[in-house]
């Protein structure tokens, strides 16, 4: 894809959307219009990328901006379909109405910059995808990245500075800060504490350094709910300083993971999954396919694709780690293990030894540093270092180990005078043990800046609205250390500032264009070549040559103590797989995204093992109390097959008390029982909550057992082919006959999904949601079985409930050649295209739902109500190439037909045939493991046609004779018995 442009343009329709989307805001803005200097601010506030290069464009924009303000003032824009057409006054060059433009930029997650390409229509971003040129993510994305546009258009984003919760103005805010600044200058920053989230931003680090220079006694710390503190500590134990390990999964023939969810959600997921899938490829076990052994206390995506998996409790992980370490001469004594563990371990150790140099041993970053530190030593002993794992200087800005604990102590001591909290939410996500929410009231001056009015905002005197990453200049480093300069792809929707602007202000400067700070950082680094390299970096989406350099280090084996087990359950704390630590709680799409393993939406549950359920006589949805020390939290239980027998998992991120209507009051707040020490693994008790019998949980999949059916098939090295297709006789004409009848099409679209590569990460589902304007329907509708996702990832178990095998199966529309659905429709609302796409024509649908009744795969979704009741700001995110469906019509996966059509049009305009694999579907584009491949089956060399030739190829519910165009590749089974069988 060559879709760069340095210039950003803006047009009126977008501005109209913008003004329409926030009538209340604009009306309060109008009050501000006369405020002195407001217009100057406003002008400065739109960091129009175009202004970088040509001033006229920028002026045009400002004129437009003025016009839109006027329109808003007139209450100008009518709702709904308007017959009105507003041209530009001055049309920016190069803008073609209705044609998207693409910009490379970044969104941040856990401090890391995630390289993205933003598609914008008329100046409004509608879709983010991974930057295909970026060396580690290579175009793939995850659910968080896909949903960043929803965050941008969240109608409940903070829009105005608040003073003690009352709307105020930037003028007043800056005045207050100026006053404070004078005091800091006096006292050399004493009592000034700045709290941010984790960061990799070179600019922020530079600014902080400058700030420290100005106010030597101030301190900057980073508040992280998840973070890498334990890992840093472990690395310090091993190497003497907190270096960063990089797992090179594409170079690993073998991975042994001790409770480390390598492929699970988080900032590393995309890169790791991409590399892992590359190594895994399509090779048979024993013929180059990477093997994965996982021991874990909670089923994870890694465990689901592992070839052997050991469910264990968190307390057993140190023992297993020591056993492995002992085997390779890193630890002294080998602990006692049970037979299951021994069996798993024997194979893991054998494999580790056999693949020395290309194997990887990892321990979850939530475990005790002393245990984690065994991993580098083992990898060193196996000569894996430098290949399967390499080390670099930290990518994240250096952070002290327990910043909030220290801060809490200082506050208790009364030594904090001003607390500035930037883009973090410690009042909500600090472990309850710190009692941060109570302590913060003792700080005389509290300032919070963030995207939303959060719990922390309420605890602060000042809340300042921040710009979204897509609205402001920024920089950061991706997980491989490569720097990315994030350019704004849309003017700030509201009167907001970027973090850099705010710090610039604290530094006594002003950065009205919001780009000074970032430019200054890079001017320093690029030196003379600034212009060229700046342009190139923006164009490429990352800065050349900034990837972290490998270090050659030798770890020392730590002395790891064995912990005794107390007579309590083991409680593990995890970030929620879809809303993470709570920061995404107000994104409805992420709330409704089914959790990969439980398929639960809109809630967090207390995950318990089948053993606990049996002992405590609990069933799904029973409400229990979890007591850790003196604190207690109440939530519904969910039985998770394959969970460690004494393990209870609490998911962070829910139970928000502020931050927006969507996230508020949903689920329980696991932070409320999180101890300050042992923040990830604790011990506690479980008791059934009195008089709270059951809580309704909205899950998109109620049944998971596959025993007796063969929806997901498996093949083994010795028997590498799926059963040959049975002959399904039909009275209907063959596809080719129909193709003949309809003037034979040049393409036959199809999709093959490799189930051996699918890790169930939901990237495809989120990408589909964004691409196809899939609506969110809310918990109640989901619990009634009315979720709207066009693509779902089915999840099945087979075997022992204590340690089942897990399977993921993405199910989009099968696009059956003999589609039963089409036959049922009385009005031709669903029919076949000559290219084999099962078309659903919303505007013809009258809603008999026969198609869905007849669909054996149940991939169709129905608009039971008018689900288009989205806030006006959310309209901006709609893909203009896809109809927004009204009430009473059926909808379903269309193979991203808008992309097929766009490719056809592009090719036809150039009078050429479609190129091989020119069309990608949204799910395919997002998939980090290339599990999904789409293309033309008539082209024998296309990726999809090749996959169809695979011995593992099979058809879901083949016996029905529907002849689907979406088919699957069976999973490999790689178990010791299978090889000889």
């Amino acid at each position, binding site marked *: 894809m060559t879709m760069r442009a340095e210039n950003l343009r803006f047009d*009126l329709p977008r501005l109209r959307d913008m003004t329409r989307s926030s009538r209340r805001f604009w009306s309060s803005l109008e009050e501000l219009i006369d405020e002195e200097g407001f217009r100057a601010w406003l002008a400065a506030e739109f960091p129009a990328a175009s202004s970088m290069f040509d001033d006229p464009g920028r002026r045009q924009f400002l*004129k*437009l901006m*003025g*016009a839109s303000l*006027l*329109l808003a003032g007139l209450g100008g824009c009518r709702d709904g*379909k308007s*017959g*009105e*057409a*507003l*041209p*530009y*006054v*001055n*049309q920016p060059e190069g803008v*073609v*109405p*209705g*044609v998207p433009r693409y910009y490379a930029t970044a969104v941040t997650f856990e401090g890391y910059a995630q390289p993205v390409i933003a598609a914008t229509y008329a100046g409004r971003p509608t879709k983010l995808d991974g930057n295909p040129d970026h060396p580690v993510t290579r175009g793939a994305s995850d659910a968080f990245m896909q949903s960043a546009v929803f965050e941008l258009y969240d109608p409940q984003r903070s829009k105005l500075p608040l003073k003690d919760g009352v709307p105020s103005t930037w003028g007043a805010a800056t005045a207050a800060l100026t006053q404070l600044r004078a005091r800091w200058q006096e006292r050399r920053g004493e009592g000034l504490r700045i709290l941010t989230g984790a960061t990799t931003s070179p600019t922020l680090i530079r600014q902080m350094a400058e700030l420290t220079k100005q106010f030597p006694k101030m301190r900057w710390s980073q508040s992280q709910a998840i973070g890498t503190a334990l890992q840093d500590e472990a690395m310090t134990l091993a190497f003497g300083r907190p270096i960063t390990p990089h797992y090179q999964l594409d170079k690993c023939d073998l991975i042994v993971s001790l409770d480390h969810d390598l492929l699970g959600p988080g900032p590393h997921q995309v890169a790791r999954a991409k590399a892992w899938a590359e190594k895994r490829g399509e090779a048979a076990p024993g013929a180059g396919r990477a093997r994965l052994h996982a021991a874990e206390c909670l089923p994870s995506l890694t465990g689901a694709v592992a070839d052997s998996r050991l469910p264990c409790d968190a307390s057993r992980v140190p023992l297993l780690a020591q056993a492995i370490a002992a085997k390779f001469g890193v630890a002294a004594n080998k602990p006692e293990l049970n037979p299951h563990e021994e069996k798993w371990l024997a194979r893991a150790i054998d494999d580790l030894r056999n693949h020395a140099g290309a194997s990887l041993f990892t321990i979850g970053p939530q475990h005790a540093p002393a245990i984690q530190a065994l991993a580098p030593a083992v990898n060193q002993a196996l000569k894996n270092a430098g290949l399967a794992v390499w080390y670099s200087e930290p990518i994240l800005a250096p952070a002290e180990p327990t910043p909030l604990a220290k801060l809490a102590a200082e506050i208790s001591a009364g030594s904090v005078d001003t607390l500035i909290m930037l883009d973090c939410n410690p009042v909500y996500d600090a472990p309850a043990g710190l009692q941060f929410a109570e302590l913060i009231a003792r700080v005389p001056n509290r300032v919070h800046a963030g995207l939303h009015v959060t719990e922390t905002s309420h605890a602060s005197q000042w809340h300042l609205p921040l710009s979204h990453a897509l609205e402001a200049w920024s920089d950061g480093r991706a997980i491989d250390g490569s720097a990315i300069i994030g350019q704004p792809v849309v003017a700030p929707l509201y009167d907001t500032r970027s973090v850099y602007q705010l710090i610039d202000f604290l530094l006594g400067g002003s950065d009205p264009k919001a780009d000074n700070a970032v430019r200054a950082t890079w001017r320093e680094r690029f030196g003379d070549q600034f212009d060229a390299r700046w342009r190139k970096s923006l164009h490429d989406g990352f800065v050349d040559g900034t990837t972290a350099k490998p270090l050659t280090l030798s770890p020392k084996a730590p002395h790891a103590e064995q912990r005794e087990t107390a007579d309590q359950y083991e409680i593990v704390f995890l970030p929620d797989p879809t809303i993470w630590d709570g920061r995404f709680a107000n994104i409805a799409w992420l709330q409704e995204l089914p959790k990969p393993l439980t398929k639960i939406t809109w809630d967090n549950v207390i995950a318990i093992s089948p053993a606990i359920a049996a002992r405590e006589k609990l069933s799904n949805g029973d409400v229990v109390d979890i007591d850790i020390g003196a604190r207690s939290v109440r939530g519904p239980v969910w039985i998770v097959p394959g969970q460690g027998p004494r393990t209870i998992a609490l998911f962070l991120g829910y139970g928000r008390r502020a931050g927006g209507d969507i996230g508020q009051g949903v689920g329980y707040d696991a932070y409320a029982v999180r101890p300050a020490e042992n923040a990830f693994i604790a011990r506690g008790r479980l008791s059934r909550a009195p008089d709270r019998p059951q809580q309704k949980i909205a899950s998109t999949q109620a049944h998971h057992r596959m025993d007796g059916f063969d929806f997901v098939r498996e093949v083994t090295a010795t028997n590498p082919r799926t059963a040959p297709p049975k002959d399904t006789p039909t009275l209907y004409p063959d596809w080719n006959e129909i193709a003949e009848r*309809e*003037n034979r*099409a*040049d393409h036959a679209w199809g999709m093959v999904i490799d189930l051996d590569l699918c890790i169930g990460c939901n990237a495809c589902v989120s990408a589909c949601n964004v691409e196809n304007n899939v609506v969110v329907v809310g918990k109640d509708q989901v619990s009634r079985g009315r979720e709207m996702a066009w693509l779902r990832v089915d999840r099945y178990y087979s075997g022992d409930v204590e340690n089942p095998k897990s399977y993921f199966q993405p199910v989009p529309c099968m696009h059956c050649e003999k589609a039963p659905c089409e036959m049922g429709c009385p009005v031709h609302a669903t*029919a*076949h*295209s*000559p*290219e084999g*796409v099962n*078309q659903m*024509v*919303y*505007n*013809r649908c009258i809603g008999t739902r026969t198609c869905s009744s007849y669909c054996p795969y149940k991939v169709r979704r129905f608009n039971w109500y008018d689900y288009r009741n989205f806030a006006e700001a959310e309209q901006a995110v709609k893909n203009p*190439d*896809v*109809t*927004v469906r009204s009430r009473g019509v059926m909808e379903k996966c*269309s193979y991203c*037909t*808008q992309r*097929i*059509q766009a490719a056809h*049009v592009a090719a*036809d*305009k150039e*009078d050429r045939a479609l190129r091989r694999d020119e069309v990608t579907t949204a799910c395919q584009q997002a998939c980090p493991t290339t599990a999904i491949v789409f293309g033309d089956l008539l082209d024998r060399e296309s990726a999809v046609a090749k996959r169809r030739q695979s011995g593992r190829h099979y058809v879901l519910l083949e016996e029905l004779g529907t002849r689907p165009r979406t088919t699957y590749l069976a999973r490999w089974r790689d178990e010791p018995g299978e090889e000889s069988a």
Partner: protein
Amino acid sequence: MGPIFSPAADTWLRLFLIAAVSLAAGSVVFAVRFAHSDWVTGVFNHPPAQPVPFSHKHHAGELGIDCGFCHTSFAQGPRAGLPPTHTCMTCHSQIWTGAPMLAPVRQSFADNNPLKWNRVALLPDYVFFRHDIHIAKGVGCVACHGRIDRMALTYRAKALTMEFCLDCHRDPAPHLRPKNQVTNMSWSPHGDREKIGHELVKQYGIREGQLTNCFVCHR
């Protein structure tokens, strides 16, 4: 006791029956015809009120300004694009500078407030029409917009119903012309219309027979 009904009752009853049957049949016929009528499709409707009484007849017809001069993206994107006020002012800063008729244009230019036109050719939002591909395949502007060069005030010349679209999508040949003639309002082929059309179909690589499937226009 006498008969219940007078002889006239029969006449009334029969009249009533005839009226009822004709009303029923007539209303079906009427409904169908009404849906096709200009009143519903908006053809030849009274031209919608515009901020400026812009005359295509004058600009395109008499002055011979090419369509692409104002509708700049007609060949590049889905939408042909309405001219920015700036385009108007390129000429009207020189001529008719004081014309009261053009006051809204000058106002717009001065205030950076876009002119608010009313759409003439408005398609429903589930129809994904693209100008560029039609232009690239030699469909003239006149095919859908009619003799715009003769319209003093712009009105809708074609029904723009699905029926209208299908007419061409089912049999594109007679509607095609050489690419350099797409904006020509008065082009007519020299020679056999049929033959030229079929040659153009071949030349443009038009997938005849596949243009009527749903996803071509709806998605």
